[in-house]
């Protein structure tokens, strides 16, 4: 039985008078690794922002678990984000002044965790994301791929209900991107982490279980990986993309 973790009903979002999202209905189940794709300006980042409480909807409603996000105040939203969500950004947003380990542990430090508990949570992540060798280094001295793995570890260390990833491979070379995607897929498989990722890269999307296509602020198609190989899922995504956007991303 699948448990829905994110539910969006009839969500709309306008910037001024320009509609960016139109009547979006979407359910993301626990343990899903979902990609949101679409040409630029299709509203994919905005959709992620409203689902992750970074931005407010203009109309409609969003639930995370049993909690309606509309009813939460600023303070509660902050607590909610801190406890239930993790974020990965295209440009990492690591704090240059902290080491890799400090960056990863920062969310826990801010919540007043004890050292033992921090170490306990750090260990499996470090292993899964191969960060052991660089824990004491500063962000300025490590590669883009390593930075994004650090950022992923920081997003995961709080055991969030959902991880939101905004073009996580956008700034990486193809090898680092592949490594990261494999690790994300691995996390998803191993820990059952729910991941919602915005991307315009069909290759990155092919690592997901499910791909949602957006155009002009509306969901226009949806694909499930099912049991097919990653390669054939990739082909289907490409095919679907070319049908929708004429290959324009």
């Amino acid at each position, binding site marked *: 039985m699948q448990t829905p973790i994110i539910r969006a009903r009839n969500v709309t979002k306008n910037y001024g008078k320009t509609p960016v999202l139109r009547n979006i209905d979407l359910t993301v189940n626990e343990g899903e690794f979902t990609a949101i794709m679409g040409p630029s300006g299709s509203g994919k980042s905005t959709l992620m922002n409203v689902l992750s409480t*970074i931005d407010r909807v203009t109309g409609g409603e969003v639930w995370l678990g049993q909690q309606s996000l509309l009813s939460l105040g600023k303070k509660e939203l902050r607590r909610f*984000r801190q406890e239930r969500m993790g974020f990965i950004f295209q440009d990492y*947003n690591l704090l240059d002044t902290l080491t890799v380990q400090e960056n990863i542990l920062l969310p826990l430090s*801010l919540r007043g965790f004890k050292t033992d508990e921090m170490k306990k949570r750090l260990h499996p992540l470090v292993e899964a994301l191969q960060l052991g060798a660089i824990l004491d280094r500063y962000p300025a001295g490590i590669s883009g791929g390593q930075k994004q793995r650090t950022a992923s570890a920081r997003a995961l260390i709080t055991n969030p209900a959902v991880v939101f990833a*905004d073009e996580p491979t956008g700034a990486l070379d193809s090898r680092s991107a592949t490594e990261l995607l494999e690790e994300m897929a691995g996390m998803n498989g191993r820990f059952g982490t729910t991941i919602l990722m915005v991307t315009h890269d069909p290759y990155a999307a092919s690592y997901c279980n499910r791909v949602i296509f957006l155009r002009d602020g509306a969901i226009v198609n949806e694909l499930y990986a099912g049991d097919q190989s990653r390669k054939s899922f990739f082909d289907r995504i490409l095919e679907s993309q070319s049908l929708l956007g004429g290959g324009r991303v």
Partner: protein
Amino acid sequence: MSLLQLTLRGANRNIRLYAIYLFAMIAGVVIHFTFSSLMYNEDILNVLRNSDMFRQGVTIASIAISLFIILFILYANSFFMRQRKKEIGMYLLLGMSERQVTRMLFYETVILSVLSLVSGILLGGLLSKWFGMLLMKLMQYDQSVSLSFKAGAVGTTAAVVAAIILIIWLQNLITVHRVQLVELFHARSIMEKPIRTSAIPALLAIILLIQAYVLIVLGRESIVWKEYGLFSMTAVSVGIIAGTWLFFRQFTGWILARLGKLPRYHEGNTVLWTSSLRFQARSNALNLTFITLFSSALILLTSFVAINYSVQFSATEKNLPNDIAFETLDGETDSKLDALIRGFEKEHPVLDYRVLHTLKADAVSDREIAFQGEEQFLEGLLLVPWSTFKEFEQLRGHPEPSELSGNETIALSAGIDIPLVHPAGSQPVFQIQVGSAPLTLSIKEQLDYSLLGWRTTIDDSMSSKAAVLVIADDAYASLRPSAGEQTFQIYTIEDAGNAEELSRQVQLLFYSAAPEGYYSSFADVYSKQIESSSLLLFSGAFLAVIALFALASVIYFRQLREATDAMTQFDTLRKLGIRSGQVKAVIRKQLLFVFAPPLVLGLLNSWLIIDSYMLSTLQDYPQLTSIVIGSMAVYFVIYVMLYFSSASVYERIVSRKL
């Protein structure tokens, strides 16, 4: 990790960014402490003749300086916070509350402030010794100034730093509450829109500026200023301020747009250096307007204090031409006074003594016809024969005055803005009464000249002077029998500038015999005058240095920011194969376009104002023009240096690998 630890870690790693900020804070403290410790330094206070005035002057100057420093630190902090927006956003996203983030920034501010307070006071103490000695030298006192850290000076400096902490806290509070988490995501990179320009507002900018300049050049004597003074004043201020702003917002953009239409626009690097400027017009306009107006004010201030200091010696001499002069009383008092003066044989031997003969008269016409600002003159009129006037002119080494005939007169209207010579036929008529006989004089000249200077008393000087008319010798001779005569005792003594003690004793005796009589002494004014104008020069120069410092940092911080924003663009250009020499040329041209107009406009504004309002009324001092040009040249050189250093900072930043 506690907030404090997080703060310390941040400071430790971000050392470069913090260093600029810390430097700004320390500089502020040093300047403030240096200045306020002068106010409390006993060595200085003891030697001053008018220490109340000194305290007052320094207090006003130090308030101005504090305001400057606060503004300057606010600017530095806003730059600092802008650089850290993402960091703050990240803290908020990871669950810190706005209050916690603000508290963390507050710790930071307190640490930085305490650091700069301590080091600034130590440095400032040293500097204040040197500045104190410089001040003493300007005032021509031979006094050494000892190193001191007075509680009062430390207290006021600490108070200013406390005010800075409070204001920064408020500023940070606002900034933190304004941080939008959406900015963390790549999807929302906000780009300034290029400004829409058109010919009409661009032209309006030029018209506004030109009308202001024309009004200034017309000068105070022209009809527009005399009849419509308030209107002209408004037109000039609005013209310069609005004109400058429109110039940067519209005119420069319009020029750039015109450049884009040139047939050869795509050749060379014109595209590169003009394109990004188009996007900056909006944010640049205010900044460059500020730089222009600020630099005009800066040059005006420097020129004013320098002129004030350099004319004070000769101006005092001009306004108080006689070392000691007083009206003749009775024989007994006069000989007592004479004995008293000659009693100072050692310090101030009498070099010259003479008696000035005049006739008393009263004005029938409005005195303003002959004496500009007539309320500043003593009641009644004094008539002097031309030959006596000539004798005094020779004594003072001036050229021979023009001759008078019939009822012509020369009015000695000391302090008149522009001396006037009235050609025969259009000479103003001035009616007076001598004894009981009316007399009609025609004014040939109105000179800025004192035969008998300002009346001085112990605590008041320069409130009234004698109104003297020079008339032809024949006229004088014929009036003499029927008129009341008034004579004056005039002494020239050695080292008159320091004859305060002599003057104090003489006037004590004089005023006890004739409380309302005329007494004038050079020394009374000279010592106060030199103190006040030295102080003005000193504070003015001090302010100018700070202002220049603030100006430099506004420019510097702005270039740092713009270069940081342009990094990706230049990275792309490098990938497209631009050579580093080309990068340099593009940056130089781009910055020249930003830097040159404020310099030109600023110099133009200040030169026109100084030339029409200061130099024209001080035509007797040709050396002033070189003082003004000198201070403009200094400003020019510093500004050009700023340009080159900004360009090199810019280059360094954009050539960093991403």
